[in-house]
């Protein structure tokens, strides 16, 4: 056989697929024939359980955990993505970040984005979910409609709102008619408002999704507790503050953690809507951590610094999540 053809065949993807396929058959055959018969029925069933769990676990390990460990490693290397050499450079990347004004601004902007978006999205979603509780007709249709912005691509939403915020757009027109000067009415070109203008779009597009989560939480509260409260003559506010709100706590914990991490990790919408060709402008006012990491990795080609930023970002999110869990999680029973 021609050597080149043999090499080509050995190197092709087919060989990987075949090896994978036969490995699975061998593992299954060995398990079924030699291991399983020696086990008790209960253990035998457990064995298959472990095998099933192993599949996503391996995937999780390969796709998430290993890259995370690699990021830690890269953060201590001078790693330019175009270069095959990655010399160890100690804490240089972290030192650079510590002295970088832009990195500091990216962290502050990420927090500003989250602080604006999270309360907005939680309060509006909760109000909407409570309103849905009172609606009897077309409930499902309205819920579906509420979900539409969430299901729409962020890129498409970004372009639509870019237009609405522009000089030709309705939002600019309304603000201008309210007597706001042109330079301030162009929200995404104004250093003071650009970030919040994007955060607003992000919050608006997620309301449907969080409403759905709140609805599930509200539906889980037993109706008898409300009935008992009504019999006792509790007012609407009392019912909300003493029953709904405390019993909604598990949903609230989940939603607040999801909303905070989603806000901090938001990338696509910011990339599409931020000024200066999507690089965080004007004047870095919309530069958040994910965008900083992306720019460092793929425009400045510095994967080492991008990895160091990722590690810092990961630690920030981890700390915030732990604090959130500690502060918000309460065990309430009636």
């Amino acid at each position: 056989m021609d050597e080149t053809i043999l090499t080509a065949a050995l190197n092709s993807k087919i060989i990987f697929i075949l090896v994978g396929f036969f490995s699975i058959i061998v593992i299954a055959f060995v398990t079924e024939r030699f291991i399983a018969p020696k086990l008790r029925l209960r253990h035998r069933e457990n064995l298959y359980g472990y095998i099933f769990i192993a599949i996503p676990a391996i995937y999780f390990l390969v796709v998430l955990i290993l890259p995370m460990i690699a990021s830690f490693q890269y953060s201590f290397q001078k790693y330019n993505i175009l270069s095959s050499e990655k010399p160890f450079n100690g804490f240089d990347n972290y030192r650079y970040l510590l002295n970088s004004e832009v990195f500091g601004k990216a962290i502050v902007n990420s927090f500003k984005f989250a602080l604006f978006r999270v309360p907005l999205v939680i309060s509006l979603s909760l109000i909407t979910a409570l309103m849905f509780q009172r609606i009897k007709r077309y409930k499902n249709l309205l819920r579906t409609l509420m979900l539409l912005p969430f299901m729409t691509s962020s890129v498409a939403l970004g372009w639509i709102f870019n237009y609405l915020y522009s000089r030709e757009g309705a939002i600019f027109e309304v603000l201008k008619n309210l007597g706001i000067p042109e330079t301030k009415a162009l929200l995404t070109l104004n250093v003071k408002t650009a970030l919040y203008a994007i955060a607003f779009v992000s919050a608006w597009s997620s309301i449907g999704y969080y409403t759905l989560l709140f609805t599930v939480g509200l539906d889980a509260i037993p109706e008898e507790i409300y009935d008992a409260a009504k019999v006792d003559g509790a007012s609407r506010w009392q019912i909300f503050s003493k029953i709904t709100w405390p019993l909604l706590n598990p949903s609230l914990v989940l939603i607040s953690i999801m909303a905070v991490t989603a806000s901090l990790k938001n990338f696509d919408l910011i990339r599409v809507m931020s000024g200066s060709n999507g690089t965080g402008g004007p004047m870095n006012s919309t530069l958040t951590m994910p965008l900083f990491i992306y720019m460092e990795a793929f425009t400045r080609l510095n994967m080492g610094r991008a990895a160091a930023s990722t590690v810092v970002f990961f630690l920030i999110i981890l700390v915030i999540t732990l604090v959130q869990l500690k502060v918000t999680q309460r065990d309430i029973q009636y």
Partner: protein
Amino acid sequence: MKKYVFLLFTVLLLISLALMSCTPSAPSEVKPEAEQAEDGSNDVVETVSSQIELIYWQVDFQGYDLGIQAAIDLFQAENPDIKVTAVPISYDEINQKIAVSVPVGEGPDIVQPFYGWVPLWQKSGFLAPLPESLFPKEEVLDTYMPVVNAMFIDDQLWGLPFNQSNWAILYNKDMFEEAGITKLPENFEELRQAAVACTKRADDGTLEVAGYYVEFGTQEHILWKVLTRKNGQEIFSEDQRTVTWNDSDIGAKSFKWLTDLVTVDKVMDIGFGEGPGSAFMTEKACMRLGSPGNLPVIRETNPDLNFGSFPFPKGLADDPNIANLNQSQYWSMNLTSKAVKDPKRAEAAYKFMRFIMRPEVALEMIKAGYGGLPAHKALMDDPYFTEDAELAAFMVSLPYSDPLFWVDEMGERNISMEMGDRVILNGEDPFEVFDWGTIQEQNLRDEFFNN
């Protein structure tokens, strides 16, 4: 139990197939030709028929695929043992694609970067130099216009141009006539006056026509630097290490001239129109900074637009060679370090680069889709360029066109854009912003040369 085992087999098989199909190809893998051309991720290989295949990555702009294919067809007719496969990569994705391919030893053999990216790519070890024995410096300098200078780094040649682009001013003839402008501007003061005369606002002050479209996100982030040079102040030291644009007040004044167009002369409002191209074609801009590549787009998109072009105005420097300076820029053609690892493949790649050096090949590429101006001296007087009325304005300053040296094109662009934003959007003092920009630019240069 058999049911479980069957289920287990099925699930494992499906997952393994899915995972395997995501597995990146091995570096020396051979794929069917059609697949290679489609995804471009494959390594360069010696195919079964011992034909060397070179992968060419180019930025995907309108017509560029036709331009490179014209060259490839001519090359392959002469060299049937070498196959060149062009892979279009979107401008926004090129760095990501490279980032994914390089660590696993894949990627292109020949790549087409913006010339300003070359220093950073060269420093990273991604590119390979063209050997002096095959590309003698004297011959290269004899063949090309000064535009090729940017390809020499550390006295080694790292790539070749095949066309180039410079600036001229595109103007709307009807608007000029309406504004009573009878003489085309020859210097920047006349340009400013024409822009003011051309600007149209409604009674409530709303801008209807921008006299001159200013957009730091596009070419204007370079314009003030070129203007500084034209006015007699070099912007960097000869070794490119030090910013010198602040050695006199010429730099700050040139920067201010540009921001004044918006803040003082009010020939443009922020957020007006949808970029210079669209604004000019929809008659919302009277003038814009133009490149030769804009001409076919305008002619195709809005054939009724009554427009013309005039040469990039003169600066204030006494030396006419400096006063007439123009910015030259281009997409270069470079070999990657991967291409030259294997001697046979390197030989094929060098052969392709030598082929591109021929003026007649470059002309075919330009005609077929790349557009722009010639980079070869031999094409300077070619009727294709000289007989085009709008292109002639660009050709006038071609002998004075000179590329800037970028250490970090994207980083430098961001600094310049922020300088514009600080003055135009934030109302900061242009001289203070200029000083801020000087520090930032020097930091980038220090990092490039010292780190």
